[in-house]
């Protein structure tokens, strides 16, 4: 009989990203993905006593109770996580901590973001006081508004300190696109890409080009985290949350302590230390990739290579699912699609599928540990986890 593992992920569900989710709302997307994730875990809505969700357009406040009521849940733990792209990874350790604290035993971590091509996408609650935010007052007047320009300034500074990375960035986009060929849910599945195409794509904000950037989509994804003893009774292999870290240093990139030494280091160091797992044991890196340049910084600051050496690391490794350093085997958000906070969850669902040996045509061989990193805002919210698998 196996030892009881830590709180573990036992079920996942993910909707294929699309440009337009039509008449779907936060609630309808949430309902269908919740049922699907629970079914994957061999559970139903009535088994859920913990719920983690995120700011949604459906209610300016009180999203957890709105959703809990909609799904008929009686909850011992209900919360909303607001860490942008780090939200999904941030949910995992909160679910595990709530289970350890005895607040719940089955925690549903749910992300759902509708989108229409008319341009209305999830923006979270709006408040009249928003006009008084420092960002609105001191950064917006100069156009320091969107993510692309913020990440462009990070990449510009990085290249000033460590040299040009255009080719390495393109190689990341190409490798992830190759991975997406084996994930039919990926938005760009079946549409191969080469380095020259990336390098010739439209310049959006120097030095970032169109194919350095994700495509916004709508979608939904959820995972079910359960107490260790319940995890052993689940129909699929348990994926224990072995260690987690989180770090937040700024909201607007202008006020970050550094553009090139990020809080990813704090977050990843904490996750690896808590898990007691070495970087060298990681068989899959599922790294938040809003931009190709984000992956370079994450490879360095999460400790997979030294500062300034990410471009060389990319050149020295095959980043595809069967390569020497499997990275974002679902295509990453660059090829899978970025459904706002649900895009962050795609890095979690992929790691779970791979650890459970459900990677189908892209299965990483002999996989025991995966590292998942979530990054929110403009490098502002960081969350990391090390996941394992209980082989029965």
């Amino acid at each position: 009989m196996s030892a009881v593992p830590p709180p573990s992920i036992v079920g996942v569900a993910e909707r294929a990203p699309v440009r337009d989710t039509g008449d779907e709302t936060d609630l309808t997307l949430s309902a269908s993905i919740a049922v699907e994730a629970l079914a994957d875990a061999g559970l139903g809505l009535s088994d859920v006593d913990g719920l983690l969700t995120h700011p949604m357009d459906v209610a300016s406040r009180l999203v957890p109770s709105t959703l809990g009521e909609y799904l008929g849940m009686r909850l011992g733990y209900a919360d909303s996580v607001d860490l942008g792209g780090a939200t999904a990874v941030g949910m995992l350790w909160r679910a595990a901590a709530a289970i350890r604290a005895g607040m719940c035993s089955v925690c549903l971590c749910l992300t759902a973001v509708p989108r229409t091509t008319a341009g209305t996408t999830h923006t979270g609650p709006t408040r009249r006081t928003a006009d008084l935010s420092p960002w609105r007052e001191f950064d917006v007047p100069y156009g320091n508004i969107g993510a692309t320009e913020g990440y462009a300034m990070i990449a510009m500074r990085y290249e000033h300190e460590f040299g040009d990375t255009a080719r390495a960035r393109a190689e990341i986009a190409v490798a992830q696109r190759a991975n997406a060929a084996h994930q039919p849910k990926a938005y760009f599945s079946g549409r191969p890409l080469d380095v020259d195409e990336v390098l010739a794509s439209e310049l959006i904000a120097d030095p970032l080009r169109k194919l350095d950037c994700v495509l916004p989509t709508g979608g939904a994804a959820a995972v079910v985290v359960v107490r260790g003893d319940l995890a052993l009774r689940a129909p699929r292999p348990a994926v224990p949350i072995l260690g987690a870290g989180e770090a937040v240093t700024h909201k607007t990139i202008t006020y970050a302590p550094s553009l090139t030494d990020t809080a990813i280091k704090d977050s990843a160091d904490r996750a690896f230390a808590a898990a007691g797992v070495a970087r060298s044991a990681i068989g899959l890196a599922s790294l938040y990739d809003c931009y190709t340049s984000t992956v370079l910084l994450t490879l360095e600051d999460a400790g997979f290579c030294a500062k300034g050496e990410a471009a060389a690391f990319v050149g020295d490794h095959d980043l595809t699912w069967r390569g020497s350093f499997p990275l974002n085997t679902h295509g990453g958000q660059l090829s899978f699609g970025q459904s706002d906070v649900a895009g962050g969850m795609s890095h979690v669902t992929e790691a779970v599928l791979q650890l459970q040996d459900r990677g189908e045509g892209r299965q990483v061989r002999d996989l025991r540990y995966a590292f998942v990193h979530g990054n929110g805002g403009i490098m502002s919210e960081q969350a990391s986890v090390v996941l394992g698998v209980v082989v029965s």
Partner: protein
Amino acid sequence: MTGRPTPHPSPVTRPFWAACARHELTIQRCGGCSSAVFYPRPVCPVCGSSRLDWVAATGRGTLYSYTVARRATHRRLADRVPYVIAIVELDEGPRLTSTVIGTDPADLAIGVRLQVDFEDDETVSFPVFRVAS
């Protein structure tokens, strides 16, 4: 020239914009730990002191990073495309968001020395920067 998205000053930040209207760049200096503070706050983010005094900045700084926006990031900036979004490191220490005007973006480089200037619209004077001569 078109305007910029208009800031909505609060009691804490009003002295900053009032100084800009006189074409003076000001920051806060902490009476507790001597830190230079930008943007304006009611307490020092380093030591927590509320003894913050308004002081004149030299207006000199260095281009810490920048990008050239090839697409408008706000409708009020649409006529300016392509435009520079810059992070300027003031000689006093704090960084701020601004832009660099008067130089072809292709000729800019991180590390160039900058000098503040002001761009007036109907109601607000915005600090902007030029490459120092």
